[in-house]
């Protein structure tokens, strides 16, 4: 009685820590602490689960410890080893494992544990639902992982008429859950078929969706896993599972919606739009064989806000977009954040001598911030981020090396020597001299397509609000 109180309290504290953790996770400044708090909550909950008094208690602590140790080791290593760029895949994989865990539990509940008393309809229904949702989260996450990791092509594993097919599977599985719950059936054959259908549904649900939309899908599947945890919590009458699961379920759902919004699409459009029409998000333009990487605006904003030195390289595109004001505004914001911002003016940038000077003078950029070619090329190798605003020929590295190029020999701004290069232009079209620019395909280059003014304003907004 007394001890059960302490464990209740521990569970309660776990839930509180989850809430506070999630809250903190929502702000870049506190996110890390939030993550640790949530982890602390989880630790507390696990300890409570291990030591809390149970009615039937066989101990089996060695099994538990073994499982925890193996799981912790594997998870930790995977997380530490992974490349920054493949983290989303890994998250997806982890999520799939969480779903699999729920599947295992529910299967055991259904078959393994000898039924002392027959389960009530709601109980049975809950377990079956856990099984279904867990399965979908499991295989769905695996497919998402495989897509992101490039192991699965965008059009692989797609069933014929995917929308209808998936609707059908969904209806069948839900129908089975209801039917089985009502008749109280739990025979293996039924269960195996339900499991199989759910697993297949997980695959065919995700497979038609384009690779670029995977983050949204992962978030959605994550809220599924949350839901299964909550359902499992109902089975075990465990508050921390129930509440933690519900929290993840609802916050995951809203996060999914937000992610869709950030891409200017609806969730429905992502799920149904499916393969083929998903081009919008993944328009990594190809030129010849090579592919230029795109960077999302939020990521670009973060990159800028957390760098120490930024050099802006304006070109003719700045003039065309009349983006000088937006450029200055971003400069101001970054400077206010302690970033060291300057401008590298190439002698022939624009379409007349001093074109950039005129524009920047219009928005009163202090002369001290302007670097000429020599100064800039000295500073560039020590610069964290370069923003190329509608310049092209003047940052074309082929002028240094490609003797066949019409611009061979022209001194250029060596932006490729900087840490990262963000390139703002509307398309992959070449500039005045009409030559392709190999800069766009370099490891450290990222494209931000769109009108320079719009892009700059979006970055400003993101930096102001987001970071």
């Amino acid at each position, binding site marked *: 009685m007394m001890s059960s109180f302490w464990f209740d309290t521990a569970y309660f504290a776990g839930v509180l820590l989850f809430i506070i953790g999630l809250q903190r996770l929502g702000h870049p400044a506190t996110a890390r602490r939030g993550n640790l708090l949530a982890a602390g909550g989880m630790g507390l909950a696990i300890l409570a689960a291990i030591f809390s008094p149970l009615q039937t208690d066989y101990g089996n602590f060695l099994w538990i410890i073994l499982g925890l140790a193996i799981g912790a080791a594997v998870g930790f290593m995977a997380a530490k080893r992974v490349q920054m760029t493949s983290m989303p895949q890994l998250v997806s994989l982890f999520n799939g494992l969480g779903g699999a865990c729920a599947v295992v539990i529910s299967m055991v509940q259904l078959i393994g544990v000898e039924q002392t008393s027959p389960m009530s309809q709601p109980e049975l229904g809950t377990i079956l639902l856990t099984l279904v949702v867990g399965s979908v989260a499991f295989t769905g996450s695996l497919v998402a992982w495989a897509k992101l990791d490039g192991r699965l092509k965008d059009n692989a594993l797609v069933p014929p008429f995917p929308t209808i097919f998936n609707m059908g599977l969904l209806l069948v599985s839900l129908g089975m859950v209801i039917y089985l719950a009502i008749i109280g059936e739990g025979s293996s054959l039924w269960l195996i078929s339900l499991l199989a259908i759910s697993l297949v549904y997980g695959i065919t649900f995700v497979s038609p969706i384009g690779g670029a939309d995977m983050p949204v899908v992962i978030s959605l599947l994550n809220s599924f896993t949350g839901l299964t945890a909550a359902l499992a919590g109902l089975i075990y009458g465990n508050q921390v599972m129930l509440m933690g699961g519900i929290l993840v379920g609802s916050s995951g759902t809203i996060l999914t919606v937000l992610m869709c919004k950030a891409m200017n699409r609806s969730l429905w459009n992502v799920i149904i739009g499916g393969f083929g029409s998903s081009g919008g998000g993944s328009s990594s333009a190809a030129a010849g064989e090579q592919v230029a990487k795109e960077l999302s605006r939020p990521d670009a904003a973060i990159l800028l806000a957390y760098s120490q030195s930024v050099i802006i390289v304006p070109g003719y595109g700045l003039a065309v977009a009349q983006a000088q004001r937006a450029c200055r505004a971003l400069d101001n914001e970054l400077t206010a954040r302690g970033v060291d911002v300057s401008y590298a003016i190439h002698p022939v940038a624009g379409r007349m001598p*001093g074109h950039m*000077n005129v524009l920047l*003078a219009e928005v*009163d950029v202090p002369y001290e911030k302007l670097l*000429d070619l020599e100064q800039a090329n000295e500073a560039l190798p020590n610069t964290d981020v370069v923003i190329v605003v509608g310049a092209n020929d003047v940052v074309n590295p082929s002028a240094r090396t490609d003797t066949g190029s019409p611009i061979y020999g022209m001194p250029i701004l060596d932006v490729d020597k900087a840490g990262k290069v963000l390139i703002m232009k509307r398309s992959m079209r070449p500039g005045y001299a009409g030559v392709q620019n190999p800069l766009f395909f370099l490891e450290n280059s990222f494209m931000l397509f769109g009108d320079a003014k719009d892009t700059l304003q979006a970055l400003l907004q993101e930096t102001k609000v987001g970071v």
Partner: protein
Amino acid sequence: MIIAILKEPKDPRVAMVPKTVQRLTKAGHTVWVESGAGDTAYLSDAAFQEAGAETHARTDILKSAEVLFSIQAPSPEELQLCQTGATLIFAESAVDDPEIQRVAEEKGLTGFTLYNLPRTTRAQAMDILSSMASIAGYRSVLVAAAKLPRYFPLLMTAAGTIPPARVLVLGAGVAGLQAIATARRLGARVEAFDVRKATREEVESLGAKFVDVPGSDDDQTSGYAKEQSKAYLERQRETILTHISQADVVITTAQVRGRKAPILVDEEALNAMKPGSVIVDLAASTGGNCVRTKDQETVVYNGVQIIGDSSLAANMPMDASQLLSSNLNQFLSLLINKEGELHLNWEDEILEATCFTRKKITA
């Protein structure tokens, strides 16, 4: 009432432009304009006639005018022609010729010159000095830029980087401020200096840098600066010297009302200047702020062009006349009552201050 406008013999401007004439004629006045008065300001007689004025010969004008407008005072001989009791309004004449006073008294004329207008807020609408100083400040920069063998703005071109020109404005009154604004527009680095402390804020409000001279004996009471103490002048000289030596363009506008203009750029400063630099001296007519300035001349000393152009405003005659005209019209409206008749309210400090001769009531 016949309002008459004289042609300026030595000035391309004209005291009234057709736009203002039209207002007067609409208000029921008769306006006479000397033939060819507006020619040099690109305002044809036809334009004046269209506005309702009659054009007449100079002597006719002088003889018939009840209110006579001109920028500079006509000669005493000409004034002899005026009808008794006429009112004279001069825009820029200091009326320092005692002969004019005598003639005016003799003929019972009432005379005003806006040269003596008080620099109050209310008087600003008729402040010709401000209007003209503003033009002079604007044009001083244009002239300097046209004469300077260099670019004003910073330019980073394929042939190297051209640093921006450095412009130093000495005296930040109306003309000085306008010069600062114009030079900044053209992309120069602008610094300015004035003895009046209040100007610091004004200079900075235009985005230019204010040059500090440690300590100043400032007098804020009147719009005009007074002469400075010896010690201060020495400190000032030294500070300015260093800034002058770096400047590509120096624009001087420092004047002390009624006195010779202070020398701000002396031989030493001139020698320190870079060859090719330009000085525009807006104080040329009162002796100049630069030792070598010659009024209405451009002197080259040691590779430095010293432009002593005191008629900068006159050389933009169209807008200058437009502004003059509007200022004079504002002044005229002070003298006229609702019925459109002359009615001089001598209580008004503006009339008081600008009047240089007044018809004796007993006469």
